[in-house]
């Protein structure tokens, strides 16, 4: 298929499709059940179309590289506060992550616990549904309850409801200072206790992770405020051990760097106190790290029975409430198992029915999220 450069061209391509389409932006997220079909490459829909720093809003075509948006924001001392993660390291993919891919997969990093998720920063979308119809929802203002919030529905739908062509985002100011408190030598359970104590304080922790046996707690803001909150937290958490202060690279957590190279990688969302139990459900030899104060577990495994591990992890998570996604795994495994957490029957019925309404011919990434 030729490079598509306009929304109209995308609409025509979808309307004229003879079979399943594999929607691709930067091609960095080879996640989900493998989809066989013609590639619909939307990376040609690129560019920031509107940026108003004083209104904290930015509008970009869906194929715009995230790096380009982040550079534009940095020039105005602003940023994407939800800290989108990059899967190229985990998946071993090349290419440049696009903003459409970020929103379509609701990709949020460590700051999600304080600032919100990608879906919380998406103000508006334009997309092409499975019949080739162009639809818009939301807008470019920060508060909007006009009609149903299809922006949320599109965020995290992995291209199964529509092909995003444009997204409007809320952006936030960058910060003057940042520091990370480090507590060494805590096991997963102790780590969650320490992180819960920090996150339940008034000191606005913008990242709380457990990586390599260390708890990392990030503070951001004006310099004096960061110093003050750091000292308060050190007092509050003194019982958990010595606390060092450092300038940590949070991309380690955001992009699950310790798991790069693993054969299989899971991303698991549970309530923070269940994080340690998730880790216990994994086989020996699995590498893990926790983000979101324990509420997000990244797990990696090399060798071993990936399908069996996957089944055990999803069963454990189903019992506690949450969801586990096999982000990386051999294609035959991803073709055979539910990559995304199976939904309860009532919810699955709603989901299937929504997919059918937005994509009646089942051509948009069909089966990627559920068979």
């Amino acid at each position, binding site marked *: 298929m030729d490079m598509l450069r306009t929304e109209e061209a995308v609409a025509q391509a979808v309307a004229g499709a003879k079979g399943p389409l594999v929607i691709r932006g930067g091609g960095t997220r080879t996640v989900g059940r493998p989809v066989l079909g013609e590639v619909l490459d939307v990376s040609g829909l690129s560019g920031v179309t509107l940026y*108003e720093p*004083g*209104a*904290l809003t930015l509008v970009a075509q869906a194929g715009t590289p995230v790096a380009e948006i982040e550079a534009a924001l940095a020039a105005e001392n602003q940023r994407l506060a939800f800290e989108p993660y990059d899967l190229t390291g985990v998946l071993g993919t090349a290419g440049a992550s696009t903003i459409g891919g970020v929103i379509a997969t*609701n990709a949020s990093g460590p700051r*999600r*616990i304080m600032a*919100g998720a990608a879906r*919380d920063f998406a103000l508006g979308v334009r997309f092409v*549904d499975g019949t080739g*119809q162009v*639809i*818009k*929802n939301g*807008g*470019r*203002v*920060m*508060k*909007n*309850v*006009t*009609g*149903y*919030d*299809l922006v949320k*529905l599109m*965020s*995290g*739908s992995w291209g*199964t409801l529509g092909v995003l062509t444009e997204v409007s985002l809320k952006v*936030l*100011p*960058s*910060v003057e200072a940042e520091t990370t408190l480090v507590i060494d030598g805590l096991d997963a359970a102790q780590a969650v206790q320490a992180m*819960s104590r920090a*996150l*339940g304080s*008034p000191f606005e922790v913008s990242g709380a992770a457990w990586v390599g046996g260390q708890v990392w707690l990030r503070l951001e803001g*004006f310099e*004096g*405020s960061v110093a*003050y909150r750091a000292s308060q937290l050190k007092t509050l958490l003194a019982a958990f051990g010595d606390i060092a202060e450092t300038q940590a690279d949070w991309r380690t957590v955001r992009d699950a760097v310790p798991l790069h190279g693993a054969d299989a990688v899971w991303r698991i*969302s549970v*309530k*923070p106190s269940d994080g340690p139990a998730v880790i216990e459900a994994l086989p020996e030899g699995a590498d893990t790290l926790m983000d979101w104060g324990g*509420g997000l577990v990244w797990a990696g495994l090399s060798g071993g029975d990936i399908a069996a591990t996957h089944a055990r992890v999803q069963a454990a998570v189903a019992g506690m409430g*949450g*969801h586990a996604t096999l982000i990386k795994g051999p294609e035959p495994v991803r073709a055979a198992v539910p990559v995304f*957490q199976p*939904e*309860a029957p*009532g*919810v699955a019925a*709603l*989901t299937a029915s*929504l*997919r059918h309404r937005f994509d009646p011919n089942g051509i948009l990434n069909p089966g990627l*999220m*559920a068979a």
Partner: protein
Amino acid sequence: MEMPLPDSDVLARKARVVERLRNVLPVDAVIDDPAETRAYECDALTAYRCPPMVAVLPATTAEVSDVLRICHEEGVPVVPRGSGTSLAGGALPTADCVILGVARMNDVIETDYDNRFIRVQTGRTNLSVTGAVEADGFFYAPDPSSQLACAIAGNIAMNSGGAHCLKYGVTTNNLLGVTMVQMDGTVVEIGGAHLDSGGLDLLGVICGSEGQLGVVTEATLRILHKPEGARPVLMGFDSVEVAGACVADIIKAGVLPVAIEFMDKMLIEVCEDFAKADYPKCGALLIVEVEGSDAEIDAQLALITDIAKRHNPVALRESASADESARIWAGRKAAFSAIGRISDYMCLDGTIPVSELPYVLRRIGEMSEKYGLPVGNVFHAGDGNMHPLICYDANKPGDLELCEEFGAEVLKLCVEVGGCLTGEHGVGIEKRDLMTHQYAPADLEAQMAVKDVFDAKWLLNPAKVFPLAVSEPRRGAALAAE
């Protein structure tokens, strides 16, 4: 506002519907005496009234499920109601409907500080959610003006905001999970105490769906530890243009105040008369509030007042005490009461890009002269969520219609400059017929497709959100299928 004619077939079956409802609910939970159903005839959009056929007050999810199943089988429309504080007519009944009030469902089910959530029945009021956790230092962030009365059920239905959402977000950003009953009585659990959805984000589309997709009976809400302190600064400026420029500069400077509230000349005077908040007499006033420890607040306010000084403020008053903070807020919080004391009014809540503020305010001023109706402006300036209060005389024939025409013109202007019809109150019946100005037919069709999925017979709050002519084929088909 036109409402669909009641279905005479449904009205004829009232006795049977009431009997069936009595079989599944306590005797005092089914209200069909016209003298009593009158209590449910309107919400806070009081210009429109219509007593429902029946009102029910279930106390559990199971009872809600029974009610909805029966109404589904009988083809009776259901209008869910929280506390009836909607300014958009979201809980306005039709004569053939069952009003489902959640007022008896107000328990706290679970409080979990380690995981920072609270689970409540949705009839609980917004303020009493915070009330349940504040002794332990926590709070629930969304704070609509009606928070003393409004129910979480209504907050979820309308995706309510509040003055402090610049920092903490609106309902959808603080909602983790729901128990929802679908129109056919099916109970679904969506979300939970964990973050984000592993599948499609159904929670995201349920929040703000104005009670059209299901009745939410329980909700898991994110709670936060209270800040150490908060302090406002009051600033007066010669004109709305200057105040608007100051807002943009504050935001660009990298400070994120917890609230930036804006009042124009008329509102300043009306509020001052009413609340004696000691406001300066000037063209526009800003209340900017920041949070943190004393030292953190000092530092942020120093930055903010430096910016303000560059805009030649006619008044600049940093609160020096809790008492003074309360007084600064008193005028703003009393704005609706203050104007209600001198006139009937209609409150709009269109949102605009912040950069369009001066232009939109000027145009509203021109419209005010054209229609001969006074208008005051108070709004959440940080996020462009306007609240023009248009004054009219309910006893003067034609004045309400004139006011509505004025309001519609303002909202169309909001859309024209890149904004939207409603930032936090919802569409309800009030903005229903303006939806075609913001959305093309295909956009509305996509939204209605979602309702088809959740409520195929279009029985839940059916005459809201979408223009009647647009939803008519669906509502009509549902009736014809009876």
